[in-house]
């Protein structure tokens, strides 16, 4: 395509930050408009890239490479350690870019609920978007890591400043866990870099694939690095028992931040495991497949059982996220085409569904100042449209066919049943439990007797229709016509399958 397409895409939200510098602090509506508009260039560019790819143009034309940092002693080793600025996308990361751009725009709309210090909020918000876009566009582990860190800092402040009552505690546990995860990840990246002299993902993959006689890294070393990587990304995903920070964040952060957090940030964990874990260490990953599948089932059931006894709807959704990330692991543990495709589908699908549900949490929290299920009830009377969207979101989440959740769940289980039928059958219990806890929560909110008067409570406003309708629309689109995802994913899947020799 043209020069620096991806760079422009990734850094376009910076324009908004610069523009915001010139807007007075108190001009709420101007700030919100600028913040919203600043998310649009990335959205347009990523959608354009997606449609061009669908119509057959190659993604390699988007690759960018600039020499960046070089160091080392040229006399002693004869070569330099060089870190390049490399951006590029494959089908999977392109989809993640589109997802990020869409959710960022919608979360910017949902940021209308932010009550104070809009300027600081939107500057951090846009910086976060740069980080997320960069994570998916980086072709180089070190660059990936830098963008990964860029997401951490704004998120920390966004949680800690604009959240609910225990926001500071949540922000700190977010920082500690993710900081530790980052540290582990940094070690992995540095070891790989030192051993191979490159941090380019493709180069690393081919070097390690050719390294059958363990010259570069010993077998144990590879396994160690993979496990370290799984822990680093497992914090993010989160994998049981590394999840408690994430529950706090889900409950304490403001809905627009959680939309991005549950929708994108958690997915970086899955992205990392698939792209780096499975991509760079395919053989070792195979050895761990059973463990990963077991962890997946544990996540699925553990999250579901805990979601069953929560009274705060946000807690239900938080544990439901843990449960649904179990399906990603289940798919990956299956290590066949159906499973991996299911896992990737689940990443996208859960991103959309979680964003929809948390947006709706914001909608009724704004009006009723509570998300505690026993205090709610009969909401369908006062807010029939919101209630309808909530039910639709719950249906998507529990895997109703015709929506994206079904396709991903189905493929993940299809994959696992081939490899480990007994484990899969145990996991299938999760399908029932998901229905139980979601219906319990959603019907508790919208059905039954109303506990309070709904006089003066308005149903969905115009601006609120946009995120709800767009998200539901995409969820249904993927559910009815999954080719929108399968086709871009074909080449990525082929590469992965080639790696694991399947």
């Amino acid at each position, binding site marked *: 395509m043209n020069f620096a397409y991806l760079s422009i895409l990734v850094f376009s939200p910076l324009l908004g930050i610069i523009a915001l510098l010139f807007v007075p602090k108190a001009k709420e509506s101007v700030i919100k408009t600028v913040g919203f508009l600043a998310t649009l260039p990335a959205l347009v560019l990523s959608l354009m890239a997606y449609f061009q790819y669908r119509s057959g143009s190659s993604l390699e034309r988007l690759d960018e490479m600039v020499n960046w940092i070089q160091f080392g002693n040229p006399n002693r080793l004869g070569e330099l350690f060089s870190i390049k600025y490399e951006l590029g996308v494959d089908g999977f990361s392109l989809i993640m870019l589109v997802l990020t751009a869409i959710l960022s725009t919608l979360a910017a709309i949902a940021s209308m609920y932010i009550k104070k210090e809009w300027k600081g909020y939107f500057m951090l918000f846009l910086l976060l978007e740069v980080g997320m876009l960069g994570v998916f566009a980086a072709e180089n582990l070190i660059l990936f890591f830098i963008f990964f860190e860029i997401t951490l800092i704004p998120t920390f402040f966004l949680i800690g400043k604009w959240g609910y009552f225990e926001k500071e505690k949540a922000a700190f546990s977010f920082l500690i866990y993710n900081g530790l995860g980052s540290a582990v990840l940094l070690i992995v990246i540095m070891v790989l870099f030192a051993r191979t002299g490159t941090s380019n993902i493709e180069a690393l993959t081919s070097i390690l694939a050719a390294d059958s006689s363990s010259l570069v890294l010993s077998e144990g070393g590879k396994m160690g690095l993979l496990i370290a990587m799984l822990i680093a990304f497992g914090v993010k995903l989160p994998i049981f028992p590394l999840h408690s920070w994430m529950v706090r964040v889900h409950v304490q952060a403001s809905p627009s931040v959680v939309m991005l957090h549950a929708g994108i940030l958690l997915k970086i964990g899955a992205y990392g495991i698939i792209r780096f874990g499975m991509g760079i260490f395919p053989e070792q990953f195979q050895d761990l497949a059973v463990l990963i599948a077991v962890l997946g089932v544990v996540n699925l059931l553990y999250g579901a059982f805990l979601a069953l006894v929560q009274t705060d709807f946000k807690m239900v959704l938080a544990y439901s996220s843990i449960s649904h990330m179990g399906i990603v692991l289940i798919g990956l543990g299956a290590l066949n085409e159906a499973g991996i495709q299911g896992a990737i589908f689940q990443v996208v699908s859960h991103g959309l569904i979680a964003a929809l549900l948390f947006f709706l949490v914001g909608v009724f929290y704004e009006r009723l100042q509570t998300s505690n299920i026993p205090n709610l009830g009969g909401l369908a009377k006062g807010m029939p449209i919101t209630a309808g969207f909530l039910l639709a979101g719950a249906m998507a989440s529990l895997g*109703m066919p015709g929506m994206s959740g079904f396709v991903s769940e189905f493929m993940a289980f299809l994959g696992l049943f081939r490899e480990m039928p007994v484990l899969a059958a145990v996991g299938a219990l999760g399908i029932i*439990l998901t229905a139980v806890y979601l219906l319990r929560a959603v019907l508790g909110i919208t059905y039954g007797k109303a506990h309070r008067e709904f006089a003066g409570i308005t149903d969905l406003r115009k601006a609120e229709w946009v995120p709800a309708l767009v998200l539901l629309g995409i969820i249904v689109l993927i559910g009815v016509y999954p080719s929108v995802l399968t086709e871009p994913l074909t080449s990525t899947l082929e590469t992965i399958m080639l790696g694991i020799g399947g």
Partner: protein
Amino acid sequence: MENAWIIPLFPLLSFLFLIFFGKRLKEASAYIGILLSLASFVYSLLVLFERFTSPTHKAESVWLTIGDVQLTAGFEVNQLNALMLVIVSLVSFLVHTYSKGYMHGDERFHVYYAYLGLFTFAMLGLVLSPNLLQTYIFWELVGLGSFLLIGFYFYKEEAKKAAKKAFIMTRIGDVGLLIGMILLFWQVGSFEYDEIFAAVEAGAVSSTMITLTAILIFIGAVGKSGQFPLHTWLPDAMEGPTPVSALIHAATMVAAGVYLVASLFPLFTASETALMTVAIIGAFTAIFAASIGLVQKDIKRVLAYSTVSQLGYMMLALGSAGYVAGVFHLMTHAFFKALLFLAAGSVIHAVHTQDIEKMGGLWKKLRVTGPLFLIGTLAISGVPLFSGFFSKDEILIAAWAHGNTVLFWLAVIAAFFTAFYMFRLFFMVFSGESRSDMKHVKESPSVMTVPMMVLAILAVVAGYVNTPWFGTFLGDWLTEGNPALGHGHIEGPSWIMIVATVVSLLGIFLAWLIYSKRSLSRDWLGASTLYTILYNKYYIDELYELTVLKVTKGLSLILRFIETFIVEGIVKGVSGAVSGLGHLGSRFQSGQIQRYGAVAFVGLAILIVVFAVTGGYLK
């Protein structure tokens, strides 16, 4: 027939249109729903007629690609599908029409019609599915429609509970179906019915696997068709509007389980164990539910248990290799049970109560509904010349011919029960004097009575498509060109028909003695233990409450304990370690220049030593 895929799209259109624009149309929404469901019905009739002369039509295209595997979606019109299309679209059309009167004045009128459209779409999609995956997709969607309509009166606590229960109980079954279907897929490499049957016939699937998958799939059918032990949701589902009970919980969706087993008939016949399971569950459910129906006091609950029981009959038929008998009874039952529910709705519409203890003497007041209800009652009781007589007879013969003697006698007793409780219901509602002050009892408008009349005619004549006297057209047509489905007609001893007749007349007579003539005490069971057990439905709900629910809840609490103490403990450990390290580090920041200098010196010394040893370069 090439365009049969259009049939489900009419109600889908109705759903989408009404959900978006229905609010403005108010009760005019009904016309859209009625017209579009009529379009489906007309089209289905055309397809059925075409199917008489032309062969099965199937068309598919790729839906989902997984590596080299391509999963397809499409539609198929074979005999069973074509017949089901007509049954579903007809009953749906009649219920659409009837609802215009029944739901009159409801403020969510358009939502009701939208949901009806969604359900009809899903049900028609289900019967057109050419493969298991697509069947599963629509299978879940009909469940969604049913859930929405049961919970239509969302502000009622009971409706909320019933909707939730229906969804979850059927989902338990659905997981069985899902597992069975996936296991079968990895054996056969396809979800297509044809290929599954071909693989089974060729012996490509081990017999253990056939039995396992067939039984798992049957669990799905058990959930959907309200068979024991997953039956408890169906009577509770009566919380929905009555026309919905007629459409979903009598005529169409609950019969989907039977339809599923019928669709996969060659798979089931390949395993004697699986067939036997189906037959035993069916026969047991038939008598079990019928016995509960003997003592219930809610008009719709009696009908609900009767539905459960009749579905059990159909399962018994299929489990006894009586493909034709099962499908035949499915059809006649759809007509007479829909009739009974609509008539019950008409009664409820008139007297505003569902308690039969409070009714009575309505024969004189409801001059149209009364006779129509009677026709339905006669048909379900198996009185000769009505449709239920022929189809039930066919089932009994199938059970006998297959050698299931015990099950056969169970079915005969259940038939006796059926005749008894149905006429108990009839006499309690229509004969004698009113047992509470019923003023303003008015017959329903013709928009409600005409659909009932259509069903009443069908409840009488539908049996004649397959009789031992005039020919077994239905059976011959259904099994034509497909020997795997068995014979079009199974010969049985003629005394079976006589026994069935005697039993049903005996049941009616006994009910008449007790509830109309009052020669016997109405409290014939009194306050006996048996009565209490039956009235409380064998305490199945309570049993589940005590076991499944308690266990789940207990597990959740245990895990919450783990979460609070162990996982959070790790959190404390981690944050403790971090802050501990911080404290340790802060001790070095004492502000004493001498200490900083000492540390720097030691560090430098170590570096120099290392460089000296390694020759100046770290490798």
